[in-house]
Structure formats: structure tokens, C-alpha cells
């Protein structure tokens, strides 16, 4: 008993530190979200006072009603949703196919590494470095201010991420299952669609959430390649900033509304995140 007590008491300082660090991380992560939501409900004057009001005692829905009255706001919402959904779908489909080929095709380790790094290079550059070439190409293709322009750019930017992530998931799938499907007479495409994809659903869900969030929040290319028809919500939010005013309330209200679809999307895909789908397939 004494030995147990000693062990527990020795553990206590470590545990306390652990709780403190956890609490600090939680505050760091949660506070911006709290600040966003409270600011969305603040009166304009309360958003700019100094010192800032951490715990507001009064609130208003004015910011939300103002934002919803903005001309074409519905269309901007739809633009964001359409572009994020299509580029997520395209990115996940094309990226999964590329990752599947990379995981199944026999090639020397070094060649595979070179290909993987080459794929990653797209993400190594800061997006701003390729902004001008993209702008010129999109304008040259007569795609300025179209949904296609943003879908293409977002897909291109998410592909490396999808390939890297999905490759890991595909490599984790037992090889024997793929071989069994080959023996059952499946073509490469049938194996991909009927066996591998259903088994990689947790991976696809994770990848899809991340790509959706990327596209949904992407600002730089959206502001550069769209002006009205294909304008997305981050660009609308940025419109509340000018050299004359900073409309914190409206910005926060729109940003808070933008979070909702992402949460719905994550909620819908969450059930696929459950691990252990492959349990029972093979005995390791």
C-alpha cells in the first residue's frame, strides 16, 4: 500500500503539469473561437473599446441581419459551397487514384521518393509565388471570375495533400485483400472502386474534411481570380476591411456563419472516421 501511495504521490506533480499544459492549449485553441462568436453578437461600439470586453453583458443580432442583407450574399454562399464541394470531390477522386497507383505499382524506392517529393513541391512554394502565373493563365483561358477557375486552382493545391495522405491509408491496407481481389478476377479499376475505396473510407473522410476546409477558407486566389459571379465568402469578409473602416461585428458574424457548414460536413463524415473498419479481414 505504501509503495502505491509513493507511486501516486510521485505522479502528482507530473499530472498537475499535464493538466496545466492541457488547459493552456485548450484556451489557446478555444479563445479565438470564443472571441469570434462573442464579437459577432457585440454592438459596434463594444468591438472597438479599449480595454476589450472579454465577457460581454449585452448583445445584438444586428451584425447577422446586416450581413444577410448584403446584396447577392446567398449567391456568395452557394459559390463557396459549390467550389469547395466540387474541388473536394475532384481532389479526393484524382488524388486517391494517383495514391492508389503509387501504392500498387512496383517501382524502385528512390524513384518513388523522387515522385513523392516532386508532388509535394507544389505545396512547398508559398501560394503567393504562383499567384501571378495562375492569374495570367486563368485570364488567358477566359476563365476569370468563373467557378471553374477556383475549382481548378483549389484542386491543384489540394492534390499533393490528398495523395500523401491517401498513400498512407492505402499502404496500411492488407496486401492480401488486394491479391484476393486480383484472384477473383477484378481489374485494377474494380479493385480500386469495389475493394480499396470502401476500405479506405476513414482515410477519405479525413482527407475530404481537410480539403473542404482548405477550399472553403481559401482567400488569396479567390480574391485574385474572382470579382462578382464566382466570389466566395472569405472575399466578402475581406470587403469589411478598408482604409476607412474595420467592421469587426459583421466580419465576425459572417465568419461565425461560415463555420457552420464545415461543422455539418465534419459531422456527416465523422462516422467514417471510426477506426477498425478492416478488423476481421486478415489475421496478422
Amino acid at each position, binding site marked *: 500500500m505504501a509503495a502505491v501511495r509513493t507511486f501516486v504521490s510521485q505522479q502528482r506533480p507530473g499530472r498537475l503539469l499535464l493538466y496545466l499544459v492541457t488547459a493552456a492549449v485548450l484556451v489557446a485553441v478555444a479563445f479565438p473561437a470564443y472571441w469570434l462568436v462573442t464579437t459577432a453578437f457585440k454592438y459596434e461600439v463594444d468591438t472597438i473599446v479599449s480595454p476589450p470586453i472579454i465577457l460581454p453583458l449585452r448583445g445584438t443580432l444586428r451584425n447577422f441581419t446586416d450581413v444577410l442583407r448584403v446584396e447577392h450574399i446567398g449567391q456568395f454562399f452557394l459559390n463557396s459551397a459549390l467550389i469547395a464541394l466540387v474541388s473536394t470531390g475532384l481532389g479526393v477522386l484524382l488524388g486517391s487514384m494517383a495514391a492508389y497507383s503509387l501504392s500498387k505499382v512496383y517501382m524502385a524506392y528512390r524513384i518513388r521518393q523522387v515522385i513523392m517529393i516532386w508532388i509535394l513541391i507544389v505545396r512547398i512554394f508559398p501560394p503567393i509565388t504562383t499567384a501571378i502565373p495562375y492569374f495570367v493563365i486563368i485570364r488567358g483561358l477566359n476563365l476569370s471570375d468563373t467557378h471553374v477557375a477556383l475549382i481548378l486552382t483549389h484542386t491543384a493545391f489540394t492534390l499533393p495533400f490528398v495523395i500523401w495522405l491517401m498513400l498512407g491509408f492505402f499502404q496500411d491496407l*492488407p496486401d492480401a485483400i488486394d491479391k*484476393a*481481389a486480383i*484472384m*477473383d*478476377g477484378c*481489374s485494377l479499376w474494380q479493385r480500386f472502386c469495389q*475493394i480499396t475505396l470502401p476500405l479506405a473510407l476513414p482515410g477519405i473522410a479525413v482527407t475530404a474534411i481537410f480539403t473542404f476546409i482548405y477550399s472553403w477558407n481559401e482567400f488569396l486566389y479567390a480574391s485574385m481570380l474572382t470579382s462578382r459571379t464566382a466570389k466566395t465568402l472569405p472575399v466578402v469578409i475581406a470587403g469589411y476591411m478598408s482604409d476607412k473602416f474595420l467592421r469587426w461585428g459583421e466580419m465576425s458574424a459572417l465568419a461565425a456563419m461560415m463555420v457552420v457548414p464545415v461543422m455539418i460536413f465534419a459531422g456527416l463524415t465523422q462516422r467514417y472516421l471510426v477506426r477498425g473498419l478492416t478488423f*476481421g479481414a486478415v489475421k496478422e
Partner: protein
Amino acid sequence: MAQIRYQHVGKRFGAVQALEDLNLVVADREFVTLVGPSGCGKSTTLNLTAGLEDPSQGEIYIDGQLVNAVPPGKRDIAMVFQSYALYPHKTVRENIGFGLKVRKMPRAEIESRVQQAAQSLEIDHLLDRKPRQLSGGQRQRVALGRAITRNPKVFLLDEPLSNLDAKLRIQMRAELKLLFERVEGTVLYVTHDQAEAMTLSDRVVVMHHGQVQQVGPPLEVYNRPRNLFVAGFLGSPTMNFLDCHLHVQDGLWQVQGEDMPEGALTLTEADLEAMDLLAHRDRLHGSAILGIRPEDIAFGSRSEADATGSHLPCQVIVVEPMGSMNILVVAVGRQRLMVSTGPDQDIRAGEQGWLTFNQAKLHFFHRDTELNLRA
């Protein structure tokens, strides 16, 4: 007709020669077992037959047709994997019928074949379950069902019982034997378990270091091992080996060794004839390795030993009662030998005694080539 013919087949993975110059004909509806330790090339042979790997050299013929360039799905082969490799997101019914569905068979026909296979494997009550809801034995049956439902020309089984516990393995072994007596098809079975190889097969192929060591019916390979490796690999407990030297004295063959004093083992011409060594007696002069299986050695008193041509003093070190027999570990000089005796023979550890050999069942191997001198 589904004969499989391997002609000078080899497979190299980088610097490793996994399979070397395989020449083998597996007859139609024959049950052939590839047996050997890990890395001996047996699974590579299976993968080459399935088409999951391409041979580095040589040709493989199935049904007289060269299949080197035929994709796996078109070879009319079914394979059962060691890890079962069931599709976890599909039900048992879908798992068993998947191969037929891919081949675009009518739904009613698929259902009837699935039912038939499930009934013969006694898993018809599990058809709507997912693999994760099944026990190891049930999963193995599903994997077998997936193979037999396609009615293929060739079955490839890659250590299908090795993931089952000992009791279930013996039960499934008997069921496999019955199943493949009913099913029409050539069977190539891979295992490292020699009991499976002995009990199931029409012929066994013993492999080592990518090379075929011996091919033959199980009992023939057991009784007439071609070399030291085969002799040591088949049999449980394994064959005993003793370094020895042979010479003729007064018309009798004296077998001596560091741990075998003069006169311990004397062989007559009749013994050589029983061992099928009479024609090769000139090979016997000089050094050799003597091999004798535990069941061909008897433990007894000096007077019992004197009645035979061999008597080797020994001391019992360990007695392992197995129920149906006792296994003795005895010391002969510095050597340890395994001896199996009847369960009723009362022998204690530490006891001194004499060993006698069944002289018709001795094996002599060349010290350098390790080949059986009879071969």
C-alpha cells in the same frame, strides 16, 4: 484436365534467388504439397502459379497452355490466403459470391452456388454476417467457400491452417482432406507443417533455399529421404544423426564413431539389402552420417540388445510422456538422441540402458554432399 507444368522456372528478387530452376509436373486433380522452412521458395512458387508474380525465367503451363503472360483472373485459379483476406466490408454471402459477380454470372446462379458452397462448409447460417463477426475457423471456411464456389481448375492454398489453434487445425485438416476429395481440381498446397504435408497430399515437394530437394508420395519421402535436409525436416520428433565411420571386418560392416564404440553397431549383408544399400555398398567405406528415426530405436537391457546387431550404452536424461508414447532424450557419449517408446514402458530419467536400432531403417548420408548413400 488441369495439369500444371513448371519448366526451368526461377524467380529472383534483387540479389535474392527465391526460386531456382523448378521443374515439376503436377497431374490433373493431384493434391501436391510444397513444404519447407520459411524462405524456401514455396510461397513464391504459389504466387508465380497464381500470376501474382512474374517468373524471372522459365515457363509455367496450365492445361498445356503457357500462362506466363496470362493475368491472374484469367487463369481459372482460386487462392486461399494464410490471412484469409476476406473483404471486411462485405457479408459472407458477398465474399463467397464476389468472384462470380465479377465474372458477371446471373444473380440466381450466384445465389445457388453460394448456398451450395456454404452448406458443404456448414456456414450457411452465417451468410449475412460480416467477417469481423466470425471466429478464426469460420473465417477460414468462408475463404475456402470463396475458392470452391468458382469451381476453378486449380486451387492454391497458402498455409490456410496456420492461423488456427492446434485443435481446430487438426479438425480442419481432416475436413480439407474430405473437401478436396469431393472437389474436382488440382490442388497446390503450401505449408511449413509437415503433419499437414504428410496427411493431405498425394505427393509432397520438399523445398529448401529455393530448390526442390525431393518430390514423392509422403511415405516414400519419409522412408527414403534423398538427403540430410529432407531426413531432418520430415518427422516429429526429428531424425537422429550421428557421425560415423564404416569399414568391413570379418565380412561384417562395423559402424563406429566418436560416440559409438567398436562393436556397437554391426551390419550384415542382409541388413544392407533391407536398407536397399547392397548395390551401393562401395559407397559405404569411410566417413558418413548415420540417420535413425526415434521410432526405430528401442531402449532396453543389455541382454535384449545382445540379441540384435546393435547395442549402444546410454543414459536417459529426460522422459516426455505424450500419452500415446514416451519420448526419451538419451545421452550417447556427448551426443543426444531422441527415442520414442511405448507408453507402458516404465523408464525414469537417470536410468542407464542400451539402445538397439531397427537395422532395416538406418540411413547413411555422405558427409560432404549430404546425399543419402542409397540415392
